[in-house]
């Protein structure tokens, strides 16, 4: 029995010309994992979301109406876009925090705690200092947020570097500590607003607020200058990761720690630095919510920002610009979800379900490949080292 392949195909397979076959394959796989898979994941999640709406007693027309409301609420008007960007702003920063850690092989689940501490630092600077012009007060408050988050990121970093404690465990524990620490602090006289018995902080000074961008057109438009800080951070992280020696070290440690060690890179130093920066990013996200949206802090004021950051980083494939795109998508879902709840009477909880489904599909690319019968296997994104490492 002879080969089923004609001689030319065989020749091409055995002796690939010019750019190697595997090279072309690799490029194709990159495109798939970076764009096609996330796109199909979103599509699949939306379809399943539709089924869920129908299963809960709506007609197909009503379900489509709900999605129309979702679309209108996210991009249907300038006000909708403003809401989308307002929701996306902290998600960009929280997503960058997780993405940066992923790149260095660390799983930062502590974004929530880091954002809480960053927010508390920012609110304190925001209300306790008075009489400063905004161009000094606002940066001071942002820096306070950065420092607060960095401290909360530094702790798991140094614990991992010095004792080998797994960052997943320590960051989760630090989330609890931060959550309860905020509860406690809001009841102290330093933070608690005069005349209140419930845990609410004082309001920040106007000079510490992020300027709003579109209130000139419509006073209800909440999008604020924190968006530029978030985009600037995305640019900075991209530059750091791919254009600097520090980023080279981060990526080397993330991709192969023993090769990094061989190359003379201090793996422990990288762990500390990465967690410090990741914490700073999450802290900036928390501070941004305080300075741009809330104006004060309450228990759990970050509203699961740190966890949504994990989802954003996964969908964005830990690429800073991917993170920006994923954050805007999730911001849109959040903003549109409000509209959907009001005008189509479909609960906003559905948005959480859709988000969770997206992440499920992104985390299991083989599933997407199977559903859509993609030919070449898609490499699963390695997000972090195992527990034992």
């Amino acid at each position, binding site marked *: 029995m*002879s080969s089923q392949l004609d001689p030319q195909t065989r020749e091409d397979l055995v002796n690939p010309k010019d750019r190697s*076959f*595997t090279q072309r394959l690799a490029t194709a796989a990159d495109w798939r994992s970076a764009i096609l898979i996330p796109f199909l994941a979103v599509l699949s999640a939306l379809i399943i979301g539709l089924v869920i709406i129908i299963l809960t007693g709506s007609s197909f027309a009503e379900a489509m109406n709900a999605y129309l409301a979702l679309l209108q609420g996210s991009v249907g008007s300038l006000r909708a876009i403003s809401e989308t960007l307002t929701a996306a702003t902290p998600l960009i920063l929280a997503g960058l925090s997780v993405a940066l850690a992923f790149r260095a092989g660390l799983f930062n689940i502590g974004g929530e705690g880091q954002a809480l501490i960053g927010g508390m630092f920012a609110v304190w600077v925001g209300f306790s200092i008075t009489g400063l012009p905004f161009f000094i007060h606002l940066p001071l408050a942002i820096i306070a947020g950065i420092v607060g988050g960095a401290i909360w990121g530094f702790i798991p970093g140094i614990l991992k570097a010095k004792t080998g404690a797994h960052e997943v465990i320590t960051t989760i524990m630090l989330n609890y500590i931060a959550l309860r620490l905020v509860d406690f602090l809001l009841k102290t006289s330093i933070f608690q607003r005069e005349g209140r018995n419930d845990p609410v902080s004082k309001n920040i000074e106007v000079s510490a607020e992020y300027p709003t961008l579109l209130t000139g057109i419509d006073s209800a438009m909440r999008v604020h200058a924190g968006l530029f800080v978030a985009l600037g951070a995305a640019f900075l992280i991209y530059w750091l990761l791919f254009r600097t020696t520090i980023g080279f070290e981060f990526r080397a440690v993330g991709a192969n720690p023993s090769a990094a060690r061989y190359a*003379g890179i201090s793996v422990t130093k990288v762990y500390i630095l990465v967690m410090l920066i990741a914490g700073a990013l999450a802290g900036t996200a928390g501070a941004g919510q305080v300075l741009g949206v809330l104006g004060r802090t309450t228990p759990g004021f970050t509203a699961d920002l740190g966890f949504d950051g994990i989802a954003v980083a996964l969908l964005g494939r830990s690429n800073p610009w991917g993170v920006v795109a994923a954050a805007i998508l999730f911001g849109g879902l959040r903003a549109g979800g409000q509209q959907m709840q009001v005008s189509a009477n479909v609960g906003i909880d559905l948005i959480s379900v859709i988000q969770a489904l997206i992440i499920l599909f992104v985390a299991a690319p083989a599933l997407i490949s199977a559903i859509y019968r993609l030919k070449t296997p898609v490499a699963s994104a390695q997000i972090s080292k195992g527990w034992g490492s």
Partner: protein
Amino acid sequence: MELELRGITKAFPGVLANDDVSLTARSGQVLALIGENGAGKSTLMNILSGIYRPDSGEIVLNGVVQKFNDPGEAIKAGIGMVHQHFMLVPVFTVAENVVLGVEPTVFGNVLNTKKANKEVEEISQKYGLAVDPKAKIEDLAVGIQQRVEIIKVLLRGAKILVFDEPTAVLTPQEVIEFFGIVAELKSRGATIIFITHKLKEALAIADSITVLRGGRVVGHADPKTATQEELASMMVGREIDLTVDKTPAKPGAPVLTMSSVTMTDDFGRDLLDNINLEVRAGEIVGVAGIQGNGQTELIEAITGLLPIAKGSIKLKDVDITGFKPRQIHRDGVAHVPEDRNEMGMIGSFTVAENLVLDSYYSQPYSRGLRLQSASIDESARTLVKDYDVRPAHIENMASTLSGGNAQKMIVAREFSRDVPLVLCAQPTRGIDVGSIEYIHEQIVRKRDEGIAILVVSTELDEIFALSDRIVVMFDGKIVATLNASETNPTEVGLYMAGKNS
């Protein structure tokens, strides 16, 4: 049992792994299957053992066409694989390992240890495979562990035994014992397929030899008449010179001086025990020894990757004891690490990035914090050309390179640095003959430039091909220092096994 493969073809995306492969293995004979990495040997064996299904072609046993849907069916049909990497549970006894999966039980599911021990004893006596059924695997030497693997397949009724690189992990003495076992199996009518890239062993043990290249059978050879050079040329497809051309060394001043170096592990056991070693400019010192006798620790001590407990290490006149790895590396030690994929490179980085893996922080590859990608790319383009890394696309991921080309990339990175000492650990492990030839030439060229070179290898052929002086390591100690011209593989092999020490 006679095994015949007829026109086996198997394609993977981008690779035609087996292309119309036909071969015959007869009862009571040894068929050696030789070929370079990527020649299709592993694919063929995976087809034979039921892991892959061929796209076309037939497996025929005693004239009956077989269809294996899973490995279990291949085992049932009488095909037994002895893998290069043993699949044994270290904390289980020999008998427990042997019966794993086919355990004799009493009362439904209670392991019948007595029966298991007896079964193992029967087979070990029948085939002359001396093993204590009650011994724990982790306490056994590698050669004995291999016997356990053989007993495992025999217990499952294997008539055709496939050995995948069986001698790779054995000492020279164990290899001789292994050949004895093969002869015994042969005399009892077993069909044996011996996959190897060691031509000398194929010639010594086989009754017939089949050569694979690029997924195709490129020839057969008669071990009685064929030479190593002929086989190598068939494997590679061009003339191959297996001997390394080199003139006698002209050793200069000492470059590396290790005095009484001792390294201990966390439990206080000696990993390196009072090592005294000198490598001079312009000479190649080969470190022979079986894997795991302190060679890894020796290299990591010199490079500063592991701290030493006692003693001193000098590079030229500078005491580098306790220096950080980066400092040692920058001050003069190039290092081709023993584990290419785990240590030597980052698969998901480009070739260009890998070529600056340990120098990215220095001029001209970076200025301040900023990487200078233009300089990095320019240097990379020169290096892939100079060191014949193929394909020469510096933007390719390193993981897309073949083993030989990946190793050439690492050699390019390390050899292109202007430093007085080069450490090469297992410089040609698992790579093709053409790349071995090339890398050996580069090592000798480097020596002739007056560089001090330390080569660690578990392959005696490689040690003898390259070394001017040979030191033998056993159990963390240097047990012999010999002039390459005044010793022979048998003597070195004895030292490697711990005799005379």
